[in-house]
């Protein structure tokens, strides 16, 4: 059977210049222009580092995306996942024509509408109704189309009562509801969505996910969906692209893609990196599991060792925290330490610090550690990154007859049953 390809990306790359715009930019611009009028290739296309946020590069140019190739079939919901800065949003921006790729091309057989952030172009002074028209027109609808759907849009948003009130009087949740409602009634062949579900209350999120399922399943619309919310991705997407450092790591069936993504979270028990020159930074994170490596048995003791580098002694109010996060990107455990309570980094250079769980009872599954290092007073964040994966298994536990199923729970407590006589 021949596939019905609605969208095709070929060799998409996007280069960004780092640093600030200044006189250096002007000289590069002139040089580029000079090459161009002589019919030569842009000299800055040959250079550029791989897009890795945490390492220091040598070049002023960085490839936010490199050699992206994929095809989307009609009616498919394609998920896109990746760490912060992996290039997800850049890809969506290119798809929705907000910015042009540096090289490559995207071919499409349908209109693309994007929902990069809801409420774009809302004007506080205008009423809800006026904003529905304005926002709809910005998203590419004609006045006629909007008029014909106005009642449905207002009903879906659940803001009937406020529809003739200026939007500046709305609560932020109401604004989002109205904005999502407009976008949900768009009728492009391809809809691009970025993280919109992170807003609104639980009821509305459910409604929004349901609406998106209708859009893709019932109405046969093609959807490209970017999110950090792996559970939303797994309910909605058929296939998923995993992006890492601006390149495609995998295009797989969603569940498989999610496990590839989880394994990307650096699969080592020990994590080391170079210290930062001007800020406190972590140089080493090491987990000491019960079974060795990254494998840990539920209920056994776990120790995590940290090394923090202090570049100078003017860093009071240091706050350090870590999370243990599961493969659906949900935090299951959080703990912190404040310098004001417990002076934790007393000297310049490397300071050592450990955390110990007597009995770590998180349920079987794959987890990783997320580090937060900040100033508790100014709220300035020095570092936030993911490291050290952790694989928990139910080893040496009395196994239920049906075996330990996945995703039954996140945590097991050591209680006891009391059966009355």
């Amino acid at each position: 059977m021949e596939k019905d390809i609605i969208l095709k990306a070929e060799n998409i790359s996007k280069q960004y210049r780092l640093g600030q715009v200044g006189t250096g930019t002007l000289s590069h611009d002139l040089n580029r222009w000079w090459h161009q009028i002589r019919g030569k290739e842009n000299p800055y296309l040959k250079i550029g580092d791989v897009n890795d946020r945490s390492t220091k590069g040598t070049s002023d140019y960085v490839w936010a995306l490199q050699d992206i190739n994929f095809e989307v079939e009609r009616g498919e919901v394609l998920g896109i996942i990746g760490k912060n800065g992996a290039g997800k949003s850049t890809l969506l921006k290119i798809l929705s024509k907000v910015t042009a790729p540096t090289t490559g091309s995207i071919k499409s057989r349908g209109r693309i509408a994007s929902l990069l952030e809801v409420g774009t172009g809302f004007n506080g002074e205008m009423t809800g109704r006026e904003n529905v028209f304005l926002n709809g027109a910005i998203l590419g609808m004609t006045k006629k189309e909007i008029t014909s759907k106005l009642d449905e849009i207002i009903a879906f948003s659940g803001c009937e009562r406020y529809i003739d009130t200026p939007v500046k009087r709305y609560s932020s949740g109401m604004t989002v509801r109205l904005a999502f409602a407009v976008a949900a009634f768009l009728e492009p062949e391809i809809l691009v969505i970025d993280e919109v579900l992170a807003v609104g209350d639980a009821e509305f999120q459910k409604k929004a996910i349901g609406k998106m399922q209708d859009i893709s399943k019932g109405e046969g619309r093609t959807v490209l969906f970017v999110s950090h919310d792996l559970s939303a991705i797994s309910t909605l997407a058929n296939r998923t692209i995993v992006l890492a450092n601006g390149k495609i790591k995998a295009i797989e069936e969603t569940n498989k893609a999610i496990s590839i993504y989880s394994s990307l979270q650096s699969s080592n028990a020990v994590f080391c990196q170079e210290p930062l020159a001007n800020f406190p930074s972590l140089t080493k994170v090491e987990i000491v599991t019960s079974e060795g490596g990254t494998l840990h048995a539920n209920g056994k003791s776990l120790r995590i060792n940290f090394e923090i580098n202090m570049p100078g002694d003017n860093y009071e109010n240091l706050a350090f925290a870590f999370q243990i996060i599961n493969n659906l990107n949900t935090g299951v455990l959080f703990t912190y330490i404040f310098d004001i309570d417990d002076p934790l980094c007393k000297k310049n250079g490397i300071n050592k610090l450990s955390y110990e769980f007597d009995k770590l009872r998180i349920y079987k599954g794959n987890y990783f550690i997320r580090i937060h290092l900040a100033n508790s007073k100014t709220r300035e964040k020095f570092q936030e990154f993911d490291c050290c994966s952790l694989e928990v298994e139910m080893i040496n536990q009395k196994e239920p007859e049906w075996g330990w199923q996945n995703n039954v729970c996140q945590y097991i407590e050591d209680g006891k049953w009391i059966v009355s006589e």
Partner: protein
Amino acid sequence: MNNTNTSNDWLFEITPKNKFFSLNLKEVWQYRDLLFLFVKRDVITVYKQTVLGPLWYLIQPLFTSVTFTIIFNSVAGINTGTVPPFLFNLAGITVWNYFTACLNGTSDTFKANAGIFGKVYFPRIITPLSVVVSNLIKFGIQFLIFIAFYIFYYLNGASLSLNSLVVFFPLLIVIMGVLGLGLGMLISSMVTKYRDFSYLIGFGISLLMYLSAVMYPMELIKEKLPKYGWIVEYNPLAYIIETARYMLLNVGKVSVLGLLYTLTVTIAVLLIGILVFNRTEKSFIDTV
């Protein structure tokens, strides 16, 4: 359904560069409702939470005209012939204001709309076009006050007469708007990367006013400064304002050659503006 994937049945293609000159008028037409809604938004929201509201439209040109009349006519003694100096200044200022409003409004298109441009695609040219159209409404209101004073002076016995060419006045305003649009698009494209231009435009406009025959007849500058008069003479803005006064008040001199020159410059500025604007819109979000 036609599923044969030949390479040329794509609806559109996203590529790194636009063609050298591409103004997709069909697409702009599809988004005409957006243009209308932007104009509506500008008109609705401009004077929200002000007490005098749209009266501000009138206060500004009136006060400027009064000031000019006192300084340039009473103190400096510029002769405006049979026409009352106040009316002479009001005519110049009304037309000049339309130009500056268009230029100011369009020249920060990219900077002011970076938020919305960074999220949704629509033909970017809709935004500067909406500025020019909504300023046209403002100009209309200001022009009404000019007409009111015209009638007032006429009834009080001033010798005023319209020139028969006044039927072409709307065309002249269109030329003025197009010139502001073209220049504004050009500047807005350059501002995205180099903010220096937005400083330039602030005092640039006020300097330009003195070179545009707003508060003096063009003849006068040629007579008083024969060496530098050509600067004003070759300024298309000065020519438009002179022509406007010629049409409305029947003063000054207008030549076909001058008009042709103005028209050529306007079209050239518009084309260059669109060209640069199109090149910028594809990737300005990376540099703004």
